[in-house]
């Protein structure tokens, strides 16, 4: 099979692969396109160039937890949303608070979540988050009952446009500075 011999062609191959992929492509996936004849550093450089090439166009090339993907620039989302007026219903406060606890305090058990929220965790809440593939069970805490430990998934980071948990808004921003009590 013919192999690309210039940078422009390599970039077009990357572009075609990224545009047609239903999920983000990791560097490892993209390396496969060149049958082992590509250095990681070169690939990163090509991706940077590709990103710059699209800067004036309709899509952004972004890097999320699972890899690289093209997505519509934010300015079009309002128009695009008119195509699908039936949007995902908003999650309840219970769901979002549970998600926040898992995201910032992971890995946590149901007991930990109940301790922080002061109310029992509805199994539906956990189920909704698992069905969205935003959380999963990463182990059991070695205490009586061996409760499941929950953590957020790569998919959660992908869906929120994040590369890692470190990119979440810092938790300190929400916590009041502790003032010692008299």
């Amino acid at each position, binding site marked *: 099979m013919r192999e690309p011999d210039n940078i422009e062609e390599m970039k077009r191959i990357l572009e075609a692969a990224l545009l047609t992929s239903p999920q983000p492509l990791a560097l490892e996936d993209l390396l496969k396109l060149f049958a082992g004849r590509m250095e990681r550093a070169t690939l990163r450089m090509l991706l940077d160039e590709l990103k710059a090439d699209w800067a004036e166009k309709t899509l952004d090339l972004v890097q999320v937890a699972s890899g690289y993907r093209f997505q519509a620039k934010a300015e079009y989302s309002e128009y695009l949303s008119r195509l699908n007026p039936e949007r995902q219903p908003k999650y309840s406060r219970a769901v979002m608070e549970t998600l*926040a606890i898992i995201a*910032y305090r992971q890995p946590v058990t149901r007991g930990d979540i109940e301790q922080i929220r002061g109310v029992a965790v509805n199994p539906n809440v956990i189920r909704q988050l698992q069905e969205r593939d935003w959380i999963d069970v990463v182990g059991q805490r070695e205490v009586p009952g061996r409760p499941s430990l929950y953590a957020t998934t790569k998919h959660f980071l992908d869906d929120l446009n994040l590369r890692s948990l470190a990119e979440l808004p810092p938790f300190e921003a929400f916590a009041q500075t502790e003032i010692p009590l008299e």
Partner: protein
Amino acid sequence: MEFTTNHPVKIKGEPLSALPQDLYIPPDALEVYLETFEGPLDLLLYLIRKHNLDILDIPMADLTVQYMAYVDKMKVVNLELAAEYLLMSAMLIEIKSRMLLPKPTEVAVEDDPRAELVRRLMEYEAIKLAAQRLDAMPKVGEQIEVAAAYYQQISLVKPPEVSLDDLVEAWRNVLKRAKLNQHHKLGRAELSVREHMSLLLRRLSAAQVLRFDELFDLETEGVPKLVVNFLAMLELAKEGLVRITQQEAFGTIYVQANSAG
């Protein structure tokens, strides 16, 4: 006289199938009322923020009174949910009482009885704000549209590979069965690998595809002939004249002429 709630209620002879709308609080409405607060911590935070109380110096008496008033309202509609709220009531009253007690002189520094409550309230408030922030962040399927150009996935169909071990194993089976059909033959047998190669090719061009074991006539051929036949096949494969394929591990091995194409 018997009092039972399961007794069907009849109005003008008709059994009552649904509660009349005007007398009945729809469960949804009830839920909305109770779901306003995500538990006792949320209610306490609401009271503290609404009345501009200092979270670090909570006036326990005021807060407890207000809290109890809310809980009393809730008790009327849903006792089950109030259980967690009642626990908090007990905690508030306990803190209040401990604050009223004179400090024992021998304990120099006593912890503020409110410390644990304040810690929990602040932790919960932080999570509450974090949740609102997560909720507001753009998400795939909501504000983020992922590009997905149409592409019909074509996967390259690779013919199954046959390992040397597979061939050896197949050969062993042939030999095993050959032994069962051993005849003692006398006389000279002129054996030539090249000749058998031609013979095999001829058979294959007529039959297109043959099973590996069909290529060996265990009834009439002696072991030396089988060996030569096998060598001939390997030679043909080496020269690319036949293709040997196997659909799955330990499956049937097929041999076909490589002339097509």
